[in-house]
């Protein structure tokens, strides 16, 4: 069974009396351990696909199964549980909480899965060391460089040991050298067995994946291996 299975999925937004089909009857399967890049210009619907797969949203029509959970008609609570347990997000803008230090930021998902405080901090510290932030534990995001912030975000995505990591333009706010280092981390994660879904508009970044899916106007127009 596929880790991610979208079957005939559409996402329709109602703007005024106009119907906008952000996604139009998409079929997409991603197996465990894959490194997939979703590529397309802005407004193509690639973010919408990512939000659906990332359980931030539900499809208007069609069937969606993520990690064995049928989520086509899921409640916000069910979606939240899958996001918490099975999925890690890495965003372009890092999306860290500026008032919290590195450890507190990393442990955030564990708070919502009810892990006791001592265990939480222990695990957060361990993951922080793994991403190379062992000496920055009590700093806050504003005191860190962009690359360090993205490492915090990756550590946060990893802390609950999810099956899938979604990365939305993870290098968009970084200089190219730092960006390469971050992409290198995704390679390592994929090698260690995580499924990686990378959303980008940059073909050169997409080229680092094993499988590229190109989306345009709500349709999958091309699929190839770089």
């Amino acid at each position, binding site marked *: 069974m596929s880790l991610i299975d979208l079957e005939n999925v559409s996402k329709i937004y109602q703007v005024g009396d106009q119907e906008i089909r952000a996604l139009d009857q998409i079929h997409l399967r991603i197996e465990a351990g894959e490194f997939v890049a979703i590529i397309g210009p802005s407004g193509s619907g690639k973010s919408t696909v990512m939000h659906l797969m990332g359980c931030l949203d539900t499809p208007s029509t069609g069937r969606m199964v993520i990690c064995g959970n049928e989520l086509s008609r899921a409640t916000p609570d069910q979606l*939240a549980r899958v996001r918490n347990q099975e999925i890690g997000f890495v965003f372009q803008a890092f999306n860290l909480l500026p008032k919290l230090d590195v450890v507190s930021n990393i442990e955030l998902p564990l708070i*919502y899965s009810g892990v006791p405080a001592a265990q939480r901090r222990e695990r957060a510290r361990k993951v922080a060391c793994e991403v190379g932030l062992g000496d920055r534990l009590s700093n806050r995001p504003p005191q860190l460089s962009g690359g360090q912030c993205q490492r915090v975000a990756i550590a946060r995505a990893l802390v609950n040991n999810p099956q899938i990591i979604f990365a939305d333009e993870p290098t968009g706010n970084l200089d190219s050298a730092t960006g390469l280092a971050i992409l290198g981390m995704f390679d390592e994660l994929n090698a260690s067995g995580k499924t990686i879904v990378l959303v980008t508009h940059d073909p050169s970044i997409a080229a680092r994946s094993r499988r590229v899916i190109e989306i345009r106007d709500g349709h999958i127009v091309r699929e190839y291996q770089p």
Partner: protein
Amino acid sequence: MSLLVVFQIGIREIAAHKFRSVLSMLGIVLGVSSLIATMALTRGMEEGTRTFMQQLGGLELVTIAEKNPSSLKMDFANLSPGLTLRDAEVIRESASLISHVSPEILISSLVSSFGQSGTRERRTVRGIYPDHFVIRMHQIGAGRFLSDLDVQRGARCVVLGNTVAKQLWPDVSIGSIIGKKVLIGTSPFEVVGVLDFYQSEEQARMRRSGKTSMRWKWDPFRVKNEAVLIPFTTLFHEFRSGAGSNEKTDSSKRNDSTELKKSNETKESNKRNDSIDSINLDTLIVRVRDLEYFRPALDQLRKLLDITHRGVDDFDFETREDWFDRVESSVRAARLSGGLISAISLVVGGIGIMNIMLASISERVREIGIRMAVGARPKDIFLQIIIEGMFISLIGAFLGIGASLGLIEILKLISPTENVPVLSWEGVLFSVVFALLAGLLSGIYPGLKAARLDPISALRYE
């Protein structure tokens, strides 16, 4: 997600915006402090009234006085002998719900000290029975009260109110007044007792601080302080001869006196009954044995007096109950209106918190989005907002309690009555609960708003 974590997040959030949080607490602080102060004030009023009532003679006192009979009974009003000593005897013997009875007659007479230079004033002299001291709740300052023996013998002894004694012998301690002679009219009386000086809390305070009120005020203790009390029999024979009963001759009056003396001990003949029927009273005061049976006691009195007055309703009961009810209801009204005002300010305080919470969540949309993205359920977000609101109001409530303690101290200094505010713990508890409720309610709307945020748009929010 444990509540502890929610609290931690809440504390951190409040600490990060100290000034804003304090501002939003202000309404709660004012509400709580005014609520506690109002309750303390009304409690003080209540207790002030209660002790005042006690000093005046309490609720147990019932005064029986004559009145005009109703028009229906006017035609045979002359069948009734009026309020007589017979009534007192009957009540004493038969009214089981009445513990003390004192029939009284009053005269107005000049009172002066014997051969001394003190004042010479016209005063109300009361002929009483010893029960009077219990019914009126007198305290003896020096000497003794009048005794049954004084009444039986018609002794020429007098108990003076404190003010009267002080005016008659301005420079002498009340202890040494005992045994001195007083002229009532032209008859000499021996002072056997001087009563305590009665005053309200306020009067005591003013006296201590040396201030004297320029305004004339109704002094409920004046009657007690200016009392001149002599045995009933003495007053009757010295001053009422001829006034008590018109149809008797002077010689029969003498007989009355002996009958009167014996009336407590022996069963009288018909003729004697006639004569104690003929001694008219000015008032008759009684003490109800148990307040639990206040109404039944009044019924009992009414039935007995109906018999002695031959069905003519020419008597009436004066009780303190009506007055006390009135005081009670005014205290209740004060409490209600004060409580209402405080409650309004608590509600306003709650709205203040709601306002701040709304501002806070629109500032934190992105944070909420991030929390949702990593797995916070809508109810986690809701709970967090609610707890924050309650936390702010709880801190506000504690500050309010502190403020109310200060406020009560100030009120104690400027309090215009004897009703010193009394801090009640129910009041404190009540206002804290109310403040928490305000915090809870004010958190609901912002909390719902936050919990309903769409994670995607919340994440994109700048």
